[in-house]
Structures are given as C-alpha cells and as structure tokens.
C-alpha cells in the first residue's frame, strides 16, 4: 500500500520553490527523485554578456545568504585571470566578511531547524542574535544582505579601528551565545530524539556520493577547502576543521554550532592582527585581461563552491561556470531519506542546509497506490510534530 505524495513546489520548510514527490509504502519512504529548475535564472549565460566588473554584482545575487562567498570566489578567480595579487589588508577584510557571513548563515539555519522541529522560540532567539552580526556587516559595507565588499583587486571599502573593535565585540558576543545554543541542542531530550539516528550517511557513502561542506564533516570526513586547499590568508588564522562522527542530523547540528566558535575566533584574530596598507589595487573596469583560464574554490557556509572562469582577452568573459554546494549534496539527500517516515523529511532535508536558490529544488516520487496527497509547508511541519507526539510521545518543551 503506497501513496504518491507530491509536496510543493512551494515548499514551506525551505521558503523556496521546491518540488518533492515522495514514494511511500505506508508511511515509509522508499524512493525519491530530484526535480529542480524553479530558481534557474540563466546566470551563467547572463555573465557572458556583462563585463568582468559588472559580473561582481550579478554573481553575488545567485544566493542572498551566501552572497559574499560567491562574490569573493569570483573576485579571487578574476584576480587569477588578471594575474594580480590583492593587498594583504584587503585579504584580511575579505576573510573577515566571509567568516561573519558564515556565522550569520549558521544562525539562520539553526533557527530554521528549530522551527522545523516545532521550536519557534529558539527560532526567534537565533534570528535576534543574528541581527547583531547584520549590524556590524552593515556598518562595514553599507548593507545587511548582499554586501558587495569585494572587487577585482581587493575590497571596495576599508575599515577603521572603531569598526574593528565593534567586530571584536560581536565575535565575543557570538562566542557567549553559541555556548547557550550548544547546551540547548545537545541536552534537550525532545530535540535529541528527533535528530539522533535520523538521516544516517556513513563515511564511505559520503565520499562516494560527493558530499561537501558541514554535511560531509558530520560523517567524520576531514574535508574543508580552507584546510585542504588554503586560499586567501587562512593558513595564518587560528582555523581548525570541525568534524563529528555520529553521521546523523544531530551530527550536522553539532558541526555547524562548533564552526561558529571557529569563525568567531578568526574574526577576533583578524581584528587584532590586520596589517595596514591599501585595500584596492585600483584596476580600471575597462582593462582587458590576458587570455587565460582559472579555477577558484572557496568554502561557502554550505560547502565547497567551485568556479571556473575563462577569458579570451575580451572585456566580457568567455565562460563562467558555477557549481554550488547544495547541488553536490542533493544526491546524498536522496540516499539518506530512504527508509524514513514522512515526519522525518523536514530535519533530513533541512540538515544539509539547502540553498535552493543556488541549486534549485527536489522532487520525490512514490510508488504503488497512486493516491495523491498534497501537503503544504506548515501542514508538513505540524504533521511531523503531531506524529512524534502521538507515536513517540515527544513534545518540544518551551522551558528554554
């Protein structure tokens, strides 16, 4: 007895258009299939029609949450093509913004996961703390989302000592708050039951399926671009790779929480050790690059972000190829979701921190009965909370 249950494409959990069709057998999922394309805006083609400098502002809009990762990766690649080295001070500012972005992205994700499990208070707490990070980012760059701090040859704006002190205070605040979140997520029994042993992805499977980012580090694999292929100034910063070995959704939560500690330490280090100097090489936007091709890899908050750029000596690039981390992780979701209940869909899919704007939706299909049931977001979340209450006697307590 199985149902065909399309969920989406306006999927509640991820606030992005996705298409899920689950193949169910009773209540267990037996198969799935990706169906993406709803946020495909043709950016790679658009990038071939804009100049090297105009593309800085196009490519940061691939994703609003990891915009600095995209723009910084592109700027780094363009600097390889133009064969220039940005000044040291610029690299420090660039890395500081990358790490602040990682903190804000992980806090956003923690809030979303809490909301998926029915814990709205924690959602409000994390997003409230995130505002402090957005404040300092706005003071440095002028905008809360989509900072546009990078340019080909450095960064567009400089920071002064006042801003660096504020950044240091924000980093210390984040270190304090993260201790609280770690306590909540590792001690609250109801959260533990809903995340432990759910969505298992073994070490060999994670490597075989090409998983990237915190998802693969949560399966005890030490892969992080900042460690394996260091770029910018990561080799000098107090950076450590965070891994955890329980291979389930809980593990992914722990990895991301601990990464916030590491990021806050890096921000503090940069605020204390930033060298003086220029921040921009001052390359003219009308300069033509040499004929060249280059790759640029950075560790975005969701994983490995891979750019390939090619120049044929013209003012506009010949080809820009972007491979976002969520596209790489979608295959492991299909693998992880099999054998689980419908009620486990939100934490498993949310566990890879999907940024569908980067990647573009998933469709899950079911077999047997052909009975169609459509559920929208809040319904799915309410269903999963009720299911756990009924079958496993779990209620998220609001005592935190």
């Amino acid at each position: 007895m199985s149902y065909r249950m399309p969920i989406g494409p306006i999927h509640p959990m991820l606030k992005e258009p996705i298409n899920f069709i689950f193949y169910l057998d009773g209540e267990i999922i037996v198969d799935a299939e990706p169906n993406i394309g709803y946020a495909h805006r043709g950016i790679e083609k658009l990038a071939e029609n804009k100049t090297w400098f105009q593309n800085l502002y196009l490519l940061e809009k691939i994703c609003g949450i990891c915009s600095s990762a995209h723009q910084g990766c592109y700027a780094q690649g363009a600097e390889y093509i133009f064969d220039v080295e940005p000044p040291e001070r610029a690299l420090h500012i660039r890395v500081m913004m990358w790490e602040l972005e990682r903190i804000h992205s992980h806090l956003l994700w923690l809030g979303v996961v809490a909301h998926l499990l029915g814990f709205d208070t924690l959602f409000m707490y994390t997003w409230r703390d995130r505002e402090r990070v957005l404040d300092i980012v706005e003071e440095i760059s002028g905008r809360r989302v989509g900072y546009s701090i990078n340019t080909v040859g450095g960064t567009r704006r400089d920071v002064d000592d006042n801003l660096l002190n504020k950044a240091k205070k924000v980093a210390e605040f984040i270190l304090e708050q993260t201790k609280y979140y770690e306590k909540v997520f590792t001690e609250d029994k109801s959260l533990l039951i809903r995340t432990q042993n759910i969505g298992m992805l073994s070490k060999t499977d994670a490597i075989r399926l090409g998983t990237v980012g915190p998802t693969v580090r949560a399966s005890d694999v030490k892969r992080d671009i900042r460690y394996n292929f260091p770029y910018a100034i990561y080799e000098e910063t107090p950076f450590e790779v965070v891994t955890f070995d329980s291979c389930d959704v809980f593990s992914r939560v722990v990895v991301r929480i601990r990464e916030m500690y590491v990021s806050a330490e890096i921000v503090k280090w940069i605020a204390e050790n930033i060298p003086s100097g220029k921040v921009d090489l001052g390359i003219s936007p009308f300069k033509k690059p040499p004929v060249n091709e280059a790759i640029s890899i950075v560790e975005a908050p969701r994983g490995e972000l891979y750019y390939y750029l090619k120049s044929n000596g013209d003012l506009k690039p010949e080809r820009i190829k972007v491979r976002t981390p969520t596209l790489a992780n979608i295959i492991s979701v299909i693998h992880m979701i099999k054998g689980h209940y419908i009620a486990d869909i939100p934490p498993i899919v949310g566990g890879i921190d999907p940024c569908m704007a980067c990647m573009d939706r998933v469709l899950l299909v079911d077999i047997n009965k052909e009975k169609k049931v459509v559920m929208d977001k809040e319904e799915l979340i309410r269903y999963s909370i009720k299911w756990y209450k009924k079958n496993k006697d779990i209620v998220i307590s609001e005592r935190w």
Partner: protein
Amino acid sequence: MLEKLKDKLKRWALRKSIWAYHLNTGSCNGCDIEILDAFTPRYDVERFGIKLVGSPRHADVVVVTGPITAKSYERVRRVLEQVPDPKFLVVVGSCGATGGLFQGSYNIKGPIDKYLPVSAYVFGCPAKPEAIIDAIYKLIKKLEEG
C-alpha cells in the same frame, strides 16, 4: 446598497489584521530572509496584527519575491488562484518589479505585473525590512481610506 455594505464590511475586516502568505517564484532568497526578518524580535510586524500563514487559502495579502522563472510560472498561477478574494499582491524586490539584474535572461518570464494586478511594489535588492513594513502599512492605510 448591498454591494456598498459588503464592500465596507470587507474593508473593515481587513483593517485590523492582515494575514500574509509568502511566495517565492525563483528569487535568490535575499528578499525572503528580509521578509522573515520582519517577523523577528528586531522589527516585529506582529504588533501590527500581521501574521505569516502557511497556506494560501488563509491569506489576505500575498507577498511575492523573485522574477518568475519558466518552471515556476504554472505553479505560481495555481497558488494565486487558491487565495480567496479580496486579495492583494505585494511585490518585494527589484527582480519581481522589473526583472532587475536578470533582464534578458532566457528563463525569466518577466515582471509579475505582466500577468497579475499588483497592489504595492517594494524596491530594493534586497528590500530592507523597514521598507517592507512601510509598504504593508501604506496598503492598510489605502484600504482604510477606500
């Protein structure tokens, strides 16, 4: 006479608490997280009685982000048909209003007002939460005044 009364009743019912449904037609998530931010403790639109609902059938105002991409067009139409009248469409972000950065792309079906009547535009890439709250507030005022 009855029509005028019904109209007045509708408008009175809408004034006090607007239930908003958020729809993403393929945006980069920048505007979406700013819309969600409006509901968090810093900005808190819930004090105006605005609530975010999970189903289009409960909504009064539909907040749309993103340029409509080829694949999402059909689905958007279907969702908007499910929203009961009276409904208002608020477009958040430059790409919904004009196509924004993505003008000319092969997969964009164009600004939303080519297909549906829009009540309010909020420009910005992404639009700030204060601007979004301002737009909804202006919409409420317009409703009050008729």
